[in-house]
């Protein structure tokens, strides 16, 4: 059992905090198991979407509803937020000044909120075009899949706020550190799900 050993997914505390590193192994692995089951849930919504894709009943189609620029900007926001969360984890691990950690978390939060804002704007535009969930099987499956990811990002954002409060009130004790490690896995995982969404949903629908 050496401190340099990798014990779990995500950034390992290693020798910077050996005691917490020991505890983190099982605590983070449990959360990783949950994330993998969440991935299965998303996979089945993707399968449903794939099956329903042609069921447009003469209504709105993917090609008429998706726009490439908003999808690209949303992707950039989420991808950058993944990087800034990485910077937050590094700041936490190496005991950087607390305002640096809070700062990176705040940037991540702002990017997450920007992503949600753009996504809601997209949905509002679609509703305006008459593309609402009950219109066709295709739209039902779209609104089951994409907003489910948005909901995850929303709860991830709330979790970021909770962690900022915890860091400010409790300081960086073992519990708070492990919570930030888990939140990191969650946030990076959501970015991976988004890769599947922008490729298999938005880009696939826009191919001419």
């Amino acid at each position: 059992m050496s401190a340099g050993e990798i014990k779990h997914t995500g950034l390992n505390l290693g020798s910077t905090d050996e005691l917490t590193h020991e505890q983190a192994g099982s605590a983070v692995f449990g959360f990783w198991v949950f994330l993998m089951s969440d991935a299965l849930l998303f996979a089945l919504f993707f399968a449903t979407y794939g099956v329903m894709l042609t069921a447009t009943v003469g209504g709105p189609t993917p090609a008429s509803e998706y726009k490439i620029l908003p999808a690209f900007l949303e992707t950039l926001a989420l991808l950058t937020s993944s990087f800034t969360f990485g910077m937050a984890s590094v700041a936490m691990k190496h005991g950087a000044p607390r305002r640096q950690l809070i700062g990176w978390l705040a940037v991540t939060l702002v990017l997450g909120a920007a992503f949600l804002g753009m996504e809601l704007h997209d949905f509002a535009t679609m509703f305006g075009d008459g593309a609402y969930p009950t219109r066709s099987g295709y739209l039902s499956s779209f609104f089951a899949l994409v907003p489910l990811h948005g909901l995850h990002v929303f709860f991830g954002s709330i979790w970021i706020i909770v962690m900022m409060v915890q860091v400010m009130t409790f300081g960086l004790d073992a519990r708070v550190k492990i919570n930030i490690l888990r939140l990191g896995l969650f946030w990076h995982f959501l970015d991976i799900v988004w890769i599947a969404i922008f490729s298999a949903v938005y880009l696939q629908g826009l191919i001419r």
Partner: protein
Amino acid sequence: MSGPDDGKRDEIRSYAIGYGLALVLTGAAFATVHWPSFISTTTLAIVLGLALVQMVVHFRFFLHISLQKSARDDLQLILFSTVIVILMVSGTLIILFNLRARMM
């Protein structure tokens, strides 16, 4: 043993490399669709291929999954989940597309 600051610099570099690669892959995928230069099936294959590569990049640089022996449990869980996902998704698609073809 390297000093703690070396570890920090390496970690930041790893995140930056991952971010750079992800940006390039994302840009390539959107560019292939925005400026179509292949037939649609080829474009779709390229987009899905790029997505797969980008997922591996995210796992490697953001989630730090490695082939190191002590991290094998996590890797095995990911591979197991991948097998289940492939089985369930491809099974659903094959069966329901087949059903649709028969009902047409």
